[in-house]
């Protein structure tokens, strides 16, 4: 398997937060969703991969190469989209593209022009006059116009309306259709990943909770619903998290067969969404 991105035992400590020995990998041709609540360490991980932050320990290999020793070579093959606009607001997309294009070895003017046309980007309007959606599309056009093999995106859909978000996700799916490019995509809007991701890496409080194929994750967890009084202290140990109200309880568990043996037909067992999994894990960490 070709690993496009491999993170091994990556550690970074700040005052009050530690990204704790995280590891995961992304293969060629796949989209990996990187999920977690705000402050979980998603942006820190991405900044460490991009060498915007200095790691304390661990390794980051991009295309099998060390991300610091081969930084320039690697960045020529990475397209990036961040959560906010970092391009000069005083310049137009045309001027900004003119500055960036010569920096990439494989810049493709035709590709850029075709994305400009497709996204209906106003080339001669100042970036500060563009809507958030347009700015994001401009970032995406830049990221896709130099034949990048890996796209790294930090919450690109946050703050976008549902129509533009869907359009954005369609573009990502299209990018990976040839199975040559990979996308590493952080978000806390998990419904985005239900549509496009092949793999999910879940980070919570600086630690990786899981990193697996999306379908395996959704199959391996179960959402259990039942009446109050069914769950005692002993039963609660079988759950990752449990939420109770006056109508009954809802809990996330990992072992579907054990739950079935424990409760029989007294509970309803559903397939959880990524959001359910994220919420129950996050709540457990908060209560720990």
């Amino acid at each position, binding site marked *: 398997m070709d690993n496009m991105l491999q993170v091994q035992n990556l550690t970074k400590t700040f005052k009050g937060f530690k990204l704790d020995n995280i590891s995961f990998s992304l293969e060629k041709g796949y989209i990996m969703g990187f999920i977690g609540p705000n402050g979980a360490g998603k942006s820190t991980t991405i900044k460490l991969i991009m060498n915007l932050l*200095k790691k304390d320990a661990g390794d980051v290999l991009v295309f099998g190469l060390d991300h610091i020793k081969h930084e320039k070579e690697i960045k020529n093959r990475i397209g990036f989209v961040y959560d906010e606009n*970092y391009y000069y607001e*005083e310049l137009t997309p045309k001027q900004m593209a003119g500055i960036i294009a010569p920096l990439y070895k494989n810049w493709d003017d035709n590709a850029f022009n075709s994305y400009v046309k497709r996204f209906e980007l106003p080339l001669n309007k100042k970036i500060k006059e563009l809507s958030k959606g347009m700015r994001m599309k401009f970032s995406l056009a830049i990221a896709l116009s130099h034949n990048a093999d890996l796209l790294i995106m930090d919450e690109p859909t946050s703050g976008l309306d549902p129509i533009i978000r869907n359009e954005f996700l369609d573009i990502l799916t299209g990018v990976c259709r040839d199975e040559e490019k990979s996308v590493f995509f952080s978000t806390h809007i998990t419904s985005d990943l239900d549509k496009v991701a092949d793999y999910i890496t879940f980070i919570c409080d600086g630690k990786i909770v899981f990193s697996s194929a999306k379908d395996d994750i959704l199959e391996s967890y179960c959402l259990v619903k039942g009446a109050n009084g069914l769950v005692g202290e002993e039963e609660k140990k079988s759950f990752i998290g449990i939420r109770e109200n006056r109508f009954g309880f809802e809990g996330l568990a990992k072992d579907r067969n054990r739950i079935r043996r424990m409760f029989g037909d007294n509970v309803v067992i559903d397939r959880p969404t990524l959001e359910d999994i994220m919420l129950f894990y996050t709540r457990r960490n908060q209560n720990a």
Partner: protein
Amino acid sequence: MLSLILKDIYLLRKTMAFSVFYMFVMLFVFSRLDNPAAVFTSCMVAIIYLMIVTGCALDEKNKSDVIFNSLPLSRSVIVGEKYLMVIVYVLFGAAVYGIVTRVIGLLGLIPNLSFLTLEGLLAAFIVVSFLASIYLPVYFKFGYIRSKIYYFILFFGMFFGISLLISVISSDSQNAGSLLSFLAVQNGAVIGIILTGAALAMLAASFGISLKIYKNREF
């Protein structure tokens, strides 16, 4: 590197245009100075200060370090461009000064106008190099907002430092005498080369410090 220079030129177009008007105003204000060479140096320092600081302010406002450090650009290029821009600004300032003094001269608005000379250009380059060599490492360490206070200190320190240097040289008559007698036997070209070399060495040393600082920066 050329891309980054192009970026600063795009960003500073308005400031550059404004500097032409600013140069007119300064020439009228400084025309009362006795020393004509000081007029040119003062105008140049003011214009170049404006451009260096505006460029740094716009970079910080747009958090451009995040983008530039995500592009296939080495940190030495990002730092080096700021130093190269000092030379670009000196050439630009000299061109503006040359054009503005020519226009004022043709119109006869200021008597005893100080025209652009090679000596004046070198003097301006040396002063600006000194300022930039101190300011840029501080900017790379603390960013624009936090480095503003240092720039004020630097300006006042420069004027105070020059008077202090003169008094030290005057009191240390033996060493000062040997320095002055050394300079007295040199012709203008040799002195110009020595001082320009010193300014370039100062910029090179400052670049080394800035690069070391910037390589350890996090964004």
